[in-house]
């Protein structure tokens, strides 16, 4: 029997309509807008000045804290401005604006596609290369990868798990890289195994990607200790805790980290970044982006330079279709609706979806019929109907904490499944933030 996680989950139509579109290199852009907040944690600090000449790979931002990261220029040209600009959600973030001139790369970057497998670096050298290349988790959370690969000394990793589930509907960028560049992804995994000092790695792939499973399994034959695990199709299998449960059958307890059960999870796209950073000296300056939607004539998977405006991507992909109602960065279950089409992509932008009104409209809310479908769908074993009820009363943060609102991973299964169309997650999200604030405040007092 195919493996999957134990609690909850939903089965939205996977809509992988762009799966047969090979990754195309996105045409050169005129201006790149590179955000200093490419990662979770403190934004980077710009280290270039207006008028500076930069090449592809030049460091333009340096980390400002432990959880922070380097940012590199994705184009060559002249720095035109360093200014706050609106990101896709409309929040102002410091950007370095570069007018593109030609395409000149830093000399140390190996631009060939020749595969380099041998790696004689020490763990420390590898980690510093990963850090200097600005590698972040490309699954969506963009957590700085070097921090995740360097667990506290008292905790020992047992297995590395590569996340190739791509459980969000529509997105196919990971599917494409697994089909097109399996060996490079596995070399990335081998490098991580060395850093973590583990001898076992798993690649979890959902059954709806048979080509990716075949190509990764074939490539894995040459790698010792790497096993491809076919998983049942169920959302949110790509959630870190769900994936660990599905692949090695261990459940990360509430408030703990994957490393507490001996697991380190990395996305397959991150693994590819690690390969490029360590073996090719290439910092994260581009990533694959799915541009998809039923209302589009042609589906695309692009290799896009970081800092390309969304409007530019949509223009090249064939323009915004007439019946487009919502444009989403990320998947339809957890992605963000784009409020500002002039915003530029960041490293972890895996997809741009165009949804029609019919696909995305929220139907009017009606009475809760206490069917319990939200509780059955919750992968964390929470009771969304109860959390929603407590949230509506207002101020009942103690009860919400007792009902473990902080365990919510905001996967959206409850809202997706609710037959009464109650906006369960909206209220849970707001109240979870409040409860987390209270918990942090209490911890700070101690």
């Amino acid at each position, binding site marked *: 029997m195919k493996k999957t996680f134990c609690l909850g989950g939903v089965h*939205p139509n996977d809509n992988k309509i762009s799966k047969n579109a090979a990754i195309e290199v996105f045409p050169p852009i005129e201006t790149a807008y590179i955000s200093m907040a490419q990662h979770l944690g403190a934004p980077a600090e710009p280290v270039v000045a207006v008028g500076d000449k930069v090449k592809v790979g030049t460091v333009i931002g340096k980390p400002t804290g432990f959880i922070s990261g380097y940012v590199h220029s994705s184009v060559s040209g002249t720095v035109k401005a360093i200014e706050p600009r609106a990101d896709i959600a409309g929040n102002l973030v410091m950007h370095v604006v570069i007018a593109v001139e030609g395409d000149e790369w830093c000399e140390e970057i190996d631009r060939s596609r020749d595969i380099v497998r041998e790696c004689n670096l020490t763990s420390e050298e590898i980690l510093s290369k990963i850090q200097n290349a600005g590698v972040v988790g490309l699954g969506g959370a963009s957590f700085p990868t070097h921090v995740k690969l360097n667990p506290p000394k008292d905790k020992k990793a047992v297995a590395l798990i590569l996340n190739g589930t791509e459980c969000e509907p529509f997105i196919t960028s990971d599917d494409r890289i697994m089909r097109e560049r399996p060996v490079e992804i596995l070399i990335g995994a081998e490098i991580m195994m060395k850093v973590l000092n583990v001898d076992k790695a798993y690649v979890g792939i959902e059954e709806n990607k048979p080509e990716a499973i075949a190509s990764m399994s074939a490539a894995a034959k040459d790698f010792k200790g790497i096993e491809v695990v076919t998983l049942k199709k169920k959302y949110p299998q790509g959630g870190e805790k769900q994936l660990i449960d599905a692949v090695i059958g261990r459940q*990360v307890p509430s408030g703990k980290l994957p490393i507490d059960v001996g697991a380190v999870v990395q996305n397959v796209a991150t693994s590819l970044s690690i390969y490029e950073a360590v073996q090719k000296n290439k910092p994260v300056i581009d990533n694959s982006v799915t541009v998809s939607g039923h209302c589009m004539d042609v589906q695309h998977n692009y290799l896009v330079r970081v800092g390309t405006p969304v409007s530019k991507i949509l223009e090249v992909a064939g323009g915004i279709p007439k019946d487009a109602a919502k444009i989403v960065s990320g998947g339809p279950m957890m992605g*963000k609706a784009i409020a500002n089409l002039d915003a530029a992509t960041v490293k972890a932008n895996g997809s741009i979806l165009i*949804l029609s009104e019919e696909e995305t409209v929220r139907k009017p809310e009606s009475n809760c019929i206490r069917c319990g479908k939200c509780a059955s769908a*919750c992968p964390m074993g929470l009771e969304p109907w109860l959390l929603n009820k407590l949230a509506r009363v207002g101020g009942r943060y103690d009860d919400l904490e007792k009902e473990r609102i902080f365990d919510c991973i905001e996967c959206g299964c409850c809202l997706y499944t609710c*037959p009464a*169309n109650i906006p369960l997650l909206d209220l849970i999200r707001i109240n979870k933030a409040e409860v987390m604030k209270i918990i942090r405040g209490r911890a700070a007092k101690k």
Partner: protein
Amino acid sequence: MKKFIVSPAPHVHSDRTTRSLMGDVLIALAPSLLVSIYFFGFSAVKLVAIGVIACCLVEYLIQKYVMKVKPTIDDLSAAVTGCLLALNLPPNSPWWLVLVGSIFAIGVVKMSFGGLGQNIFNPAIAGRVFLLVSFPALMTDWTIPASWFDSVNASVDGVAAATPLAVAKEAIANGTPLSEVAAYSGLTWKQMFFFKVGGSAGEVSALALILGFLYLVIRRVIKPTIPVVIIATIAIMSGIFSAINPELYTGPLFNICTGGVLLGSIFMATDYVTSPMTTKGQIIFAFGIGVITVLIRYFGAYPEGVSFAILIMNCTVPLINKYCKPRRFGEVK
């Protein structure tokens, strides 16, 4: 410039709505309704039509003129209540009995608590029990109405006058051993399973009810937990009792196939609003219904106990929900 929607995730929604769930319940009731029409002809059609129209109308009027909200009868929940109530009445019931039951079920049991999702008791069952205690004679008059299929009725006339449960109960009260009661010992499993005339309009055929059950489970409207646990509890408990004294206590198959156990456990005990949310809670709830049903049948005043058992267990649902939490992810037992 064109404007786009900006709203929080998720951006897609399943097709399931309250209306589609209720619609599925109506579809699941169709086989029983057809069997009922086959045996009872026009009176079955009449009962169900009055029940559905009356329930929808009462809900509509209350929402529009009393609560002053947008009427929501298009969610089909009132239609389900009307249909269930009608199928829970004797087939020969007068038209006004259904009407009174509908007004009580929707007006008092459902709407006075705030409408769909707010009621404590299952409206159809509460409506039936209200009629049973208010009009006991009418509610136990199991005369078979004139039908288009008189030849069918004639052949099973022997068990038609009273329900087998009532006959068995009376016999026990009179001290007659069960083996001498033709309506009990003469009843073959085939009769019990495929059709038996004598009983409410909707419980003629166990097979039709089970078809409805399978449909609901396959369509994922309900989980099989509640009906299966109720039936298992009744089977085991009556199995033990009848093994001890088969002349005094009726047997498992008889208890399951008669007197609304299937209709009640499949369609009424599984009502979302009035049953617990978690599997653990549902098991406790269903076990309670099974035990109370058997106790009423063996030791109570009524021959039939499912309705009362469901109502009694309905009261415990808030408490069960409070203490039966789902298994949390990562919880160490």
